[in-house]
């Protein structure tokens, strides 16, 4: 009983069930116009385990028959209406796997030939003993199982061949379409395969490499050929991503021996990869690190210098001493801010769209909060900050924490680079497809040449007025990244000595209201 299995039947049980035992029961259709024959067959075959269905005419049999519903048909040759021979033909048309045994009244050579010709596997002459019936049925069923099994095997083999064919052409297509260059040489060192990317990466335009010949030194960089030879000699040392000297720039070669199942070396596969992108990333990283080092060095140098001065007892005036300590404190504060900015910078860069918690946002709320947060700093510098936010400001889809950081940085700059008793105005209004937020200050202004570099990491506007103002040169860079992540734009207008306006445009797409 399959119901008794808690979940699925175990694989071994399944295998055993499909393995045909010699006396495997079958489904037998008995077609005979004589009731006695039909019932006699049923009474003999059912105790043997077979499932017996009966029909009293060919027409009835056809009406109830569906392909796959029976394993064996036991058909009387002579019946009123459609004959047994015709029924047999029709049944086998419907189900070629069905095996048939004819029941004939007289065991003559003629009837035997006739039955076999019509596709019957065997015949049984009336009258027959129960044993003869059981024997004939079992023999026919065995044949039936065998035929089915053979058909299954054949089908499986065909499917395998089909798979192999597709696999080969698929592999070929993949290799041909790869962006990496592939070159395969055999144990004689002759080329057996290469792809178009190999030619492209090596800049081979004229003569193409000949299959069955060694790669020619005219077409291939000398170092590459040496490495391939080395991979063979070294008994299978895989060379990973060596940058190829001598050849076209920014190519890395990955060379590996090909081995068969027994471990014998059959050839060498070389993969060439364009690492331009990787190298420019490395360069960018190295530039960034040296910029960070530079930014750390200046404040550390200044602090150390002050400490040396204090230690040497050069300064005797307590007021001056206090000034020095205050400046040291300010510079360490700036260093801490630099570390915070660096962390923000890396987090925002690393963040994918997925990590961003973008939700409908009330911008006026975020701006009001930011203005309140910046109030103490503004008061210290005696700068007045005002916000102009219409009540019906549409919501936008944005990350709240990031926008809060964006406006904090912009307001921080507007206050920091302002004149004493200056003012900062932050306003928001909808424009074509965007929501514009403007931060206007009455500060130092930015020269045209400095405007072009604004937002570059670590770039700071250097003028005698800004020399005392501490900053990391990352604030606007972070702003730009946040704006870019929201698919917005930053516009800056500035006049030296008068002030600047930073305009952030955030798209209203997908916005509600």
């Amino acid at each position, binding site marked *: 009983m399959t119901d008794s299995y808690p979940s699925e039947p175990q694989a071994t049980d399944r295998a055993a069930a499909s393995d045909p035992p010699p006396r495997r029961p079958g489904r037998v259709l008995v077609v005979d116009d004589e009731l006695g024959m039909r019932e006699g067959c049923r009474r003999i075959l059912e105790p043997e385990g077979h499932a017996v269905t009966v029909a009293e005419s060919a027409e009835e049999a056809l009406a109830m028959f569906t392909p796959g519903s029976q394993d064996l048909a036991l058909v009387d040759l002579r019946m009123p209406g459609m004959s047994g021979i015709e029924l047999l033909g029709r049944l086998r048309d419907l189900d070629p796997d069905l095996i048939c045994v004819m029941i004939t009244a007289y065991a003559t050579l003629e009837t035997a030939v006739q039955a076999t010709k019509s596709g019957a596997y065997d015949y049984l002459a009336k009258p027959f003993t129960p044993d003869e019936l059981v024997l004939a049925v079992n023999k026919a069923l065995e044949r039936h199982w065998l035929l089915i099994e053979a058909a299954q095997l054949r089908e499986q083999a065909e499917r395998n061949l089909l798979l192999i064919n597709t696999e080969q052409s698929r592999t070929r297509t993949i290799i041909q379409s790869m962006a990496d260059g592939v070159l395969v040489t055999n144990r004689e060192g002759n080329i057996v395969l290469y792809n178009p990317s190999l030619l492209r990466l090596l800049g081979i335009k004229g003569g193409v490499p000949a299959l069955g010949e060694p790669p020619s030194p005219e077409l291939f960089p000398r170092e590459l050929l040496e490495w391939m030879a080395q991979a063979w000699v070294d008994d299978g040392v895989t060379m990973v991503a060596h940058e190829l000297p001598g050849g076209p720039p920014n190519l890395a070669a990955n060379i590996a021996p090909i081995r068969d199942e027994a471990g014998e070396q059959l050839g060498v596969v070389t993969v060439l990869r364009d690492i331009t992108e990787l190298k420019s990333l490395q360069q960018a990283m190295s530039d960034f690190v040296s910029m960070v*080092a530079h930014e750390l*060095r*200046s404040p550390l*140098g*200044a*602090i*150390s*210098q*002050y400490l*040396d*001065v204090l230690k*040497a007892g*050069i*300064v005797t005036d307590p007021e*001056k001493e206090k000034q*020095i300590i205050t*400046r040291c404190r300010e*510079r360490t504060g700036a260093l801490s801010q630099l570390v915070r900015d660096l962390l923000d910078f890396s987090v925002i860069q690393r963040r994918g769209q997925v990590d961003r918690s973008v939700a409908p946002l009330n911008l006026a709320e975020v701006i009001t909060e930011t203005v309140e947060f910046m109030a103490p700093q503004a008061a210290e510098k005696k700068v007045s900050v005002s916000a102009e936010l219409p009540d019906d400001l549409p919501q936008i889809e944005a990350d709240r924490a990031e926008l809060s950081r964006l406006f904090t940085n912009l307001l921080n700059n507007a206050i920091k680079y302002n004149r004493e008793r200056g003012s900062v105005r932050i306003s928001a209004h909808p424009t074509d497809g965007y929501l514009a937020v403007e931060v206007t200050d009455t500060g130092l202004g930015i020269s045209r040449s400095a405007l072009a570099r604004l937002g570059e990491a670590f770039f700071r506007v*250097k003028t*005698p007025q800004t*020399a*005392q103002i501490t900053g990391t040169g990352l604030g606007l860079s972070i702003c730009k990244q946040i704006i870019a992540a929201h698919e917005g734009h930053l516009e800056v207008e500035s006049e030296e000595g008068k002030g600047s306006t930073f305009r952030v445009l955030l798209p209203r797409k997908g916005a509600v209201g």
Partner: protein
Amino acid sequence: MAQGKRVLLVDDDVDFLNAVRLTLESAGYDVLSAHTAKDAIALLRQAPVQVAILDLMMEEPDSGIAVAHFLRRQPEMQGIPVILATAVTEKTGFRVSLDDPDDRDWLKVDAWVDKPVNPELLLKVVERLRKERQSGS
């Protein structure tokens, strides 16, 4: 302040400048300070100095080297001793040896000090160069 004890100090960091200025002033020097090479050259045109202390790497192209070379091109300033203040990392990246007289000649400097500058050492070097200059001229 005695004209014989005037020093030019050039560095782009306002606090470093202030700290070194305090050091030099404590020894009785009159200090002219500038953040950029441009400002430094403008100051040099106005008032003669006895010693120049320059930061090696300021914002390009206003490097300390530019000031040193400017000094060497002016007949009346050629003899002003130049001290270069450098951070250790700068020296290794610079690929010149400041111990090598030829390199020092190329750099147009007479002495160098490491940043952060040891106040006592700086004063010694400044004093030595100033005296050499006096006895030489």
